């Protein structure tokens, strides 16, 4: 036995050495590190275009919805003492607001974003908005005829619609959480709180993310769900029997959430980071992402929707999340 087992050990030594060798990677000279929560399928072509245009290697780290917003934003917080990232590109804005508040971001006004309206930029330059995703009602057209489809958020509370037929992503996380904070900012917090409590009391399904809402509406397990335009687009492209409803008269209640791009404070490749930030916030990049149907509109030509101040949304985030925990986590 000893001899054969000894062979096992001897075989293991080169494996260890080889693994160590293979796991090592060289570092290119001109590079920029970006942390992004934008789906890789959309972000990758944009980052490759930047590499081609600027000759700077982009090292990306992508987030996943399953990490429950505890991914990249918390990684940036944990690395605050010795930052590893240069740019944070978020598919929404609430985590960026939190990072700005915690001193993780550096001020920068990208020249190419000079035409971005002030409501989509941080006045101190900690972040710049780029492109919009809408918070919409996705309806299953086999379950609901056009006349029965809810046309506003409040219509979700009408008795005609059974609670079990409504799906929302858990407002503790992601854009669902931002949406709740935006409602707190745009109407009185008591009114917004009461809306969510009524949804809960009605028995609405609180699901594990906007993509799950999309999938359950597409399969008909729920008749209507509150989700993002890019998720809805995926269902439409796959041929699912779904229709998008923009809440409010002519979409007046629709919340449009901007992507946000920021330079990290103390970034190891600060100059390259600023160039990438400028590239990402340009009208050209925005146009590409609108064409890819990840974004539904440009911040430069925002559709009519719910009017909110993102600074005010940031101030309401904590209260909204605490309330969401109390309302939905029981």
């Amino acid at each position, binding site marked *: 036995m000893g001899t054969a087992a000894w062979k096992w050990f001897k075989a*293991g030594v080169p494996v260890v050495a080889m693994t160590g060798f293979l796991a090592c990677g060289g570092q290119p000279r001109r590079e920029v590190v970006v942390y992004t929560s934008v789906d890789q*399928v959309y972000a990758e072509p944009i980052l490759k275009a930047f590499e081609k245009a600027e000759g700077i290697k982009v090292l990306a780290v992508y987030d996943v919805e399953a990490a429950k917003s*505890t991914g990249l934003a918390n990684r940036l917080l944990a*690395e605050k*003492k010795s930052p590893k990232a240069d740019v944070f590109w978020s598919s929404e804005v609430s985590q960026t607001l939190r990072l700005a508040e915690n001193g993780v971001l550096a001020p920068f006004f990208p020249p190419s974003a000079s035409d971005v309206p002030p409501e989509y930029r941080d006045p101190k330059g900690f972040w710049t908005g780029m492109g919009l995703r809408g918070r919409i009602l996705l309806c299953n057209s086999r379950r609901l005829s056009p006349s029965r489809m809810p046309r506003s958020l409040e219509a979700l509370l009408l008795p005609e619609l059974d609670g079990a037929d409504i799906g929302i992503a858990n407002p503790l996380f992601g854009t669902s959480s931002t949406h709740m904070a935006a409602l707190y900012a745009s109407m009185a917090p008591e009114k917004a709180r009461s809306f969510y409590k009524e949804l809960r009391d009605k028995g609405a399904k609180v699901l594990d993310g906007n993509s799950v809402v999309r999938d*359950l509406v597409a399969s008909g397990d729920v008749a209507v769900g509150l989700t993002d335009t890019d998720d809805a687009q995926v269902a439409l492209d796959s041929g699912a029997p779904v229709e998008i409803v923009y809440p409010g008269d002519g979409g007046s209640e629709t919340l449009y959430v901007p992507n946000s791009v920021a330079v990290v404070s103390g970034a190891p490749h600060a100059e390259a980071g600023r160039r990438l930030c400028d590239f990402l916030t340009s009208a050209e990049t925005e146009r590409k992402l609108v064409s890819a149907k990840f974004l539904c509109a440009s911040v430069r030509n925002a559709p009519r929707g719910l009017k909110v101040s993102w600074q005010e949304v940031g101030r309401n*985030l904590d209260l909204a999340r605490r309330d969401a925990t109390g309302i939905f986590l029981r």
Partner: protein
Amino acid sequence: MNKPPKPASSKASAYVWGGLFLLLSAGPALFPLFDQAAFAAGHSVWNGERSWPLLIRSIGLAAFTASAAALLGAGLAVWMVSGGGPARKVARGLYLFPLLMPVYLSAMAWMTVLSRDGALSTLLARRVGFVLSPFGFWGAAMVLSLNLFPFVTWMVIQSLEAMDAGPAEVWAVLRGGPPTWRRGIFPRLLPTVAAGAILVFAIALAEYAVPALLQFNVFSMEIFAEYSRSGDPAAAAALALPITLPAVIAALAAASLARRFPAKGARESRLAEFSALGLPLEGKIIGLLGLASLVLGLAVPVVVLVIHSLSGGGSQAIVEVGASLGSLGFSFRTAAASGLLASALAAPVAWSFHRSEPGLFWAVCLAPIAVPSPLLGIGLAQLSAEPLLDWASKGPWMLILGHALRFLPVAALVQADFWRRSDPLLWDAAVTSSGLLRRTARLWLPLAAPGLVLSAAFVSLFSLGEIAIAVLLCPPGSQTVALRLFNLLHYGASNSVSALALLILVAASACGVPLWLAIRRRMTL
């Protein structure tokens, strides 16, 4: 046979190694606690009115999952050894596969087949007039049980192999098939089954993804919610203590049970002797339940993945697989490195505890399992921001370390089990022969090699599907295949996701199965 003597020095070394083990496997997760006013933060976010019921729900889900896993796992193990034939052979080859399947993907597969227009729902509605819902307590418990019960099966098989009195001897005393099982074997398996159930309990208690997906709120969600809201790892770590405590209590219970495990066995496996015994009716029933669970736990996710992969002609899936080869290579390299590191780190504790304190070993191993993964990841991310460790964050080292530490208890349990079944005369030779280097190189390492390789393989396989730590520690510009898969999952590319998941399973099997077979032969199982 008697156990070797336990000198005081070996006990002391076990405690030292145990302390180091705990420090390594749970320390980084607790690192934030030393940095800030964590307990005050934890107290401020604790909401008794809501937190207590959530904690009770978590314990309820974990307890049910553990009970179901005990029943199904033990049943399958007993059924597999109680006869021959191709079905049993196939089951023996496949029973660990559910552990390879990321539990989140299993839950999604069950949601697909039990959705309103899903295959199983349609079938049930047509045949029996009702549909099952994958949501809520029962759905979460079912998915977790189907994924985790092989842990119990594995432990029971090891226990059966290690029985010091063979079935033939018990048979001779009890003069019959079913009584041999009822009075001779089942009672002696109970400590192992209970210990396996406790292992499942500890894992299920910290589980977050499946309950969240299947709409059953648990206490882990409180930790994630707090973490996402405040970004304060200290508060999240303090909130994790209430779920760590039941796991520690369970671990202590397992520790007392472990004293009654069959300590070691003959070098020749006695599994063949069990097939001559007639299994009693209750054994047959739970055995078939276990078999049905194995079939369901494997078939549903795999069939759903295959069907999704082929949807739309499969061309998109092929493109995605091609694009993911780089991620796959990176994943396998880092997973292999994590496995080897975990195996090396676990070796001293498994060896020293095995010799002196096998009971306490369980407590040491199980406690870190209840620490939520993101806390370990955040602790390591904070550590890597320290100037001394700056170099480590530039490569895959922190990721390798993170996975190795997360699955260190698995490595230690596998190695301890290996030692338990090895020949004590050889230990004595390893301990008493002269010269530390000579003793290590000529006796200890050859003895330990199969256990080391097997534990490395286990850790590597678990690392492949892990995402909570990977998203926090993956080096910029690289990506594990699990991260790529979950990123695509959000995008809704179900055929690409399925193809990628299948690719992980096939690749892991291609590496794991030959290794497993070689080690089985080497260990004379």
